[in-house]
């Protein structure tokens, strides 16, 4: 499939901090996960791709339009859904009114069609029953879903979600995964998260960002494969391990370079992620 988003050489500084340093990537339909430690530049990259903040350098296109021009940015925004890391609300609006407000801002001007669309996205995120409630009365998880509904309104072709599952309970998170997976059918979804299992379950691609640069770009299986032969079990904490912890079974699970003859274990995506972050050996495989 042809890429919906392609970016090359994106750089952004805040004062002396390099938030993004020469980031290049291509996104195609489906869910792409963006992993990285705190301060890696994930939110900045998402804000740049969502046209909320312009980059210092570099070029990118979204759905064939260049957001670096005012006209191109408008075109991108017409096809964009953005869920910020800390969404804000007008607490006196009802859920319906708030999503309706955002839908108007997305230039959905036909009243009947818009109201249908707002009801549809609210149903989709499971808020059909509380759409008449004021946002100040909603719980944290519900508010998060209102923000997702606002992002989904207008059927965007490109969806940017910044840590949407933070602060949700396991059941809500499962529900969110379902929503995002559905949203990823036919759309390009970029999902920033700290949860490696979200990525393992949802994403067909994963990008690891650290220190403002791309450390890995490939499939989750490829990321997991990086840890193949580098996870082992031992009786005590292995001094040569990058990380090791006692599991519930009483043995230690170690990640790093195993000693000869070690009892190797099946790696997970998280092991691959940890090793990628640690490696000065990180290379972009895309």
């Amino acid at each position, binding site marked *: 499939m042809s890429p919906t988003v392609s970016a090359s050489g994106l750089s952004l500084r805040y004062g002396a901090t390099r938030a993004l340093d020469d980031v290049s990537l291509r996104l195609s339909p489906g869910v792409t996960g963006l992993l990285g430690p705190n301060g890696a530049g994930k939110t900045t990259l998402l804000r740049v791709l969502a046209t909320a903040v312009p980059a210092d350098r*570099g070029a990118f296109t979204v759905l064939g339009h260049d957001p*670096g021009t005012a006209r191109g940015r408008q075109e991108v925004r017409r096809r964009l859904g953005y869920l910020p890391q800390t969404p804000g609300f007008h607490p*006196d609006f009802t859920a319906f009114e708030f999503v309706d407000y955002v839908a*108007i801002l997305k230039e*959905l001007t036909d009243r009947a*069609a818009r109201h249908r669309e707002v009801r549809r996205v609210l149903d989709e995120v499971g808020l059909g029953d509380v759409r008449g409630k004021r946002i100040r009365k909603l719980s944290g998880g519900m508010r998060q879903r209102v923000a997702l509904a606002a992002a989904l309104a207008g059927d965007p072709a490109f969806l940017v979600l910044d840590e949407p599952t933070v602060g949700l309970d396991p059941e809500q998170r499962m529900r969110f995964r379902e929503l995002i997976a559905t949203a990823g059918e036919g759309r390009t979804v970029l999902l920033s998260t700290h949860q490696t299992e979200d990525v393992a379950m949802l994403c067909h691609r994963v990008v690891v960002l650290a220190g403002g640069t791309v450390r890995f770009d490939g499939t989750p299986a490829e990321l997991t494969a990086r840890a193949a032969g580098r996870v082992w079990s031992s009786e005590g904490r292995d001094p040569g391990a990058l990380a090791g912890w006692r599991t519930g079974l009483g043995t230690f699970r170690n990640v790093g370079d195993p000693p000869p003859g070690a009892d190797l274990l099946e790696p997970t995506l998280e092991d691959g992620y940890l090793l990628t972050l640690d490696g000065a050996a990180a290379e972009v495989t895309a």
Partner: protein
Amino acid sequence: MPVTGIRAAGDTPVREARRGALLTLVRPVARTVPWRALVAGGALGLLAAAVPRLSGGEVTPWAGVNALRAAALCCALGAAFLLDDPARQTTAAVPVRRVLRHALRCALVLPPAAAWWTAAVLLVPEEARPPAGDVTVEAATALALALAGAAFAVRRLGADRPGQGVAASLLVTGVLAPLLTPADWALFTVPGDPRWADGHGHWRLLLCAALLAAAVCCTEPARRRTLRTLRSPSRT
């Protein structure tokens, strides 16, 4: 996804979609305007304007013009909160431009503000009333400075609720300006002072500058204009 056709903009001219969006936006935006701050500013402003009349005694032109200046500053302090929008992050990347959203807020507030100002001017007894046009320029400058400050904070710092900081800076400016502006600018004169006309020439200049700054700050840059990028444009 069964949503083809809801977006009026699909193939119809963009301008029409934008106009439609603006009209439908009036009601929800009117609800997001921080009316409490504006009403409080207006009410205290009216109180200030009414003090000379309420005091009973003879009202001097000095008292009249300063009552109106205090009223204008109150109104401007209220207006500093006009661009406060807790949902700014959520609506950071929507196609309706920021300048239109800001302009809509201002347009909603302007008619009541004009009526309010007329009332404030009329509250000052006629014998002490300064020339209405000139003193309106002063009030408009204060208002424009407040809006320019708020728009600047939104554009530069991405602030959700710039009001508090802008109001504080505006207040500091308002208190220090009469003390620190050079006397030959004659900004804070009393009607009848020979420098009144000159001073109001300066006020008009200030108003134009503030309006220009506000207009510039309302736009949303598509590219960052830093010294570095000017020197070496993007490498692509």
